[in-house]
């Protein structure tokens, strides 16, 4: 088995209301100089050793990511 991480982030053109709210929270706590906050997610997969990056890409395109609003990066073979 190997571990794969998929990092899903919102596209730059898409407003992230969650990030805006969190930025407000940080400012409220007194953290100055926070330019912007954008929230994404990490999907951790454990896959068979012969799983290729192309196969993971297909998983992303078909289900894991909505490419209308999200970008993704794949990190292959991260050790658990």
């Amino acid at each position, binding site marked *: 088995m190997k571990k794969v991480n998929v990092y899903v982030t919102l596209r730059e053109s*898409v*407003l992230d*209301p*969650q990030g805006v*709210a969190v930025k407000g929270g940080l400012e409220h706590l007194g953290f100055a100089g926070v330019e912007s906050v954008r929230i994404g997610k990490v999907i951790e997969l454990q896959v068979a050793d012969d799983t290729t990056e192309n196969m993971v890409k297909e998983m992303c395109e078909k*289900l*894991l990511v*909505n490419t*209308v*609003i999200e970008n993704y990066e794949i990190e292959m073979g991260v050790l658990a």
Partner: protein
Amino acid sequence: MKFAVIVFPGSNCDLDMYHAVKDVLGEEAEYVFHTETSLEGFDGVLLPGGFSYGDYLRCGSIAQFSPIMAEVKRFAEEGRPVLGVCNGFQVLVEAGLLPGVLMRNRDLKFMCKTVDLVVENNETMFTSEYAAQETIRVPIAHGEGNYYCDDATLAALKANGQIAFTYKENPNGSVENIAGITNEAGNVLGMMPHPERAVEALLGGEDGKRLFTSIVKWGARHVTYN
């Protein structure tokens, strides 16, 4: 007309949808579980609201792979009526039957209230019983109804008259106040507001009823009964 009300794990407006077409309109309706693979004998498909698969990953993203959805796609490609309300709308965009995506509401709040909608296109099989630019009152109940699409898609929606309903006052941040859109062919409608909850005066209003009578009227002209 015979309607299929699709039931996913986590659907919770399926009874409302069934009640609207069966009890209020007096049409035929049957629940069709997500594991079914056939829509044989049905003339219309209704995808109800709720939280299919717990809204895990993204709203509607997992329901699109339910066995019944391949059949819903085939049904839609044949030009027959498919209506998705709320979570049903989210399922339709995730399944690629409608363009765009529904994101978290602008103010991050779940919004549950009755709103004014404007009928932007009354020449669809879902809206023919409304007047052009008519204002109707229909409830919304969603946390992720913030419609988004890129500029090219938005231009196409406008050019093809695919924007069926807009909000008079934008509750959730949707681009161009969009509340409901059709596909290019006009036989698939997705909308966040709940017309099935506005079919009886007793429950606060009847403005949603004409959406269903529009479909039935279309059916009377196009559906042939064996």
